């Protein structure tokens, strides 16, 4: 008989609602609803991408688009789908995913659904950096080539990081309180928006017009050079966020509880904020500050999964769905005229923001 003590008979979950999944040293809780949201969400993303890729002067049916994506289709279809249209749609999906994960992190850190990067000024900080490059680096001519491909993401990242440091510094008072972070962030956001307006006023008409389209969050004319930075950022930062999600869960409790559980609260929060800022900045650099996705997607994902905080993977998928669907609407709503995708997300997101504020007020009264 070989050591019977090491064998544990399979048994029902001891704790209701927390069915274990254990493989070797790896263990987690099975959350079927959350897993279903991710799987269904991914299917919807692919279908929405297929619809979006079929749209245009040379319409292609969804089955044909899917065939092309799986390696089939004729030469013309392949050219249109893969070379001309895919970068734009893919940028949309990736940017939406990045924004949503960023929002899930900041909302969890602040324990406040309003604390998303577009509300607390992180996106605006990244935008200041990017607009600075668009408006001034061209020095009279159009910004293009290396300046645009490298300069805009780097400037956006710097802008985002500086803003994050500023907000965190101003909001920190022997600990971080969510509402204080939101208030400080809203103030900083207003200042940054004013700064952007000023830059648009002092620059030439041509640069201002370019910046303006970008400012509304546009996916128009996105090429592979826009896809790669976001894709790389997601490939690095999403796994980081998933590793940190365990700590993020504990940060949801008060600071004292989290410290009592052995978490280095300020350090963990700074690292998580860094991940969130990088995601938001890279997304803004690729497509402009697409409004409200970072605010809305994590909250939708939280409600769909039934988990007590914005989930990382769920938010990622919902953010991608939201942005691609918004892009489809932006391209079709006004017939021939394409809207910047940011206008559509704003039309969806603004009422939701009002709802959140109303709900917040009711709760703080009650």
């Amino acid at each position: 008989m070989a050591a019977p003590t090491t064998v544990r008979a399979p048994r029902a979950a001891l704790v209701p609602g927390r069915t274990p999944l254990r493989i070797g040293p790896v263990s987690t809780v099975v959350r079927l609803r959350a897993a279903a949201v991710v799987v269904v969400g991914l299917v919807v993303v692919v279908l929405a991408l297929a619809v979006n890729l079929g749209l245009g002067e040379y319409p292609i049916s969804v089955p044909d688009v899917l065939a092309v994506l799986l390696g089939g289709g004729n030469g013309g279809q392949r050219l249109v789908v893969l070379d001309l249209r895919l970068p734009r749609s893919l940028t949309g999906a990736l940017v939406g995913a990045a924004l949503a994960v960023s929002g899930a992190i900041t909302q969890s850190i602040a324990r406040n659904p309003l604390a998303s990067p577009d509300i607390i000024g992180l996106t605006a900080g990244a935008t200041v950096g990017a607009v600075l490059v668009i408006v001034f680096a061209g020095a009279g001519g159009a910004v293009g080539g290396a300046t645009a491909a490298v300069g805009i993401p780097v400037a956006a990242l710097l802008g985002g990081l500086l803003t994050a440091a500023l907000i965190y510094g101003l909001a920190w008072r022997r600990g971080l309180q969510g509402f204080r972070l939101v208030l400080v962030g809203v103030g900083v956001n207003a200042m940054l928006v004013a700064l952007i307006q000023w830059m648009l006023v002092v620059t030439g008409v041509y640069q201002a017009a370019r910046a303006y389209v970008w400012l509304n969050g546009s996916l128009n004319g996105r090429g592979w050079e826009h896809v790669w930075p976001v894709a790389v950022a997601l490939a690095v930062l999403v796994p980081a966020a998933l590793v940190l999600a365990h700590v993020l869960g504990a940060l949801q409790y008060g600071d004292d509880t989290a410290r009592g559980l052995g978490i280095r609260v300020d350090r963990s929060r700074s690292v998580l904020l860094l991940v969130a800022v990088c995601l938001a900045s890279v997304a803004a650099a690729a497509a402009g500050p697409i409004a409200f996705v970072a605010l809305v997607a994590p909250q939708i994902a939280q409600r769909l999964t039934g988990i007590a905080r914005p989930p990382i993977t769920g938010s990622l998928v919902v953010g991608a769905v939201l942005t691609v669907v918004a892009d489809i609407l932006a391209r079709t709503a006004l017939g021939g005229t394409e809207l910047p995708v940011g206008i559509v997300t704003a039309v969806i997101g603004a009422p939701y923001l009002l709802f959140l504020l109303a709900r917040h007020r009711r709760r703080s009264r009650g």
Partner: protein
Amino acid sequence: MTTWTTPAAGEHIGAADRDPGAVRLRADDVRLAYGEHVVIDGLDLDVVNGTVTAVIGPNGCGKSTLLRAMGRLLKPTGGQVLLDGKRIDRTPTKEVAKILGMLPQSPLAPEGLTVADLVARGRHPHQAWYRQWSGDDEDAVATALEWTGIADLAERPVDELSGGQRQRAWISMALAQGTDLLLLDEPTTYLDLAHQVEVLELVRRLHREAGRTVVMVLHDLNLAARYSDRLVAMRAGRIVASGDPSDVVTEALLAEVFGLDARVIPDPVSGTPMVVPIGVHSSSG
């Protein structure tokens, strides 16, 4: 590594293998301040293995501040806190969290969180990002839920519970953490008397049957005297008296610490001192 097995048997390891007289937690000449405001200066306190210590004192006397410092939530600006003889601020915080559990005053839980998920969070110090629900975690949480009598509430959201149930859920979380030291900051706040007694009975069982060493801040003197082995009375950042409840709760001390004019008689149920207030000294205004 669950340090206690079944609720009924009350078997435990961890605390039991230590010298019963050992000092587990020591505040050594600590000075505690929030910014410029010094709350406590030059205070010493020893917490002995296998005891229940209750800290009492008027509002603002620094009792919660002291507890936060003993639980390394507040760093002393002078002196040191020693956990098992080692400086607590130089021990990795996750290691501390395996020895010492802390229940803050009015803790916050995320909206919609279930009781099971709350209690499971107590396992954090034993987990890693890839190991979030081991067999040990599951055993410890199931036992903690049963111990605190909330197993049937496991799937309910914490925010729907009554005050007493919620407090038991939080204690259950601290219990699941599997530490043999527990610091409880006013665990009975906002509870009605029946629920206060319920929570303190639970604390007593944790001590007697599961071998936990407990330090708690309490408001109610009679309950503090009844449910502790050792009372520490504080006033204005200093320890005025400490020791056996019957030695500490005296009419003279109540006058000195609380400015309270009172009679002290033996509690007819437990024999511990019982305070019968008469009035407040006019000088304490």
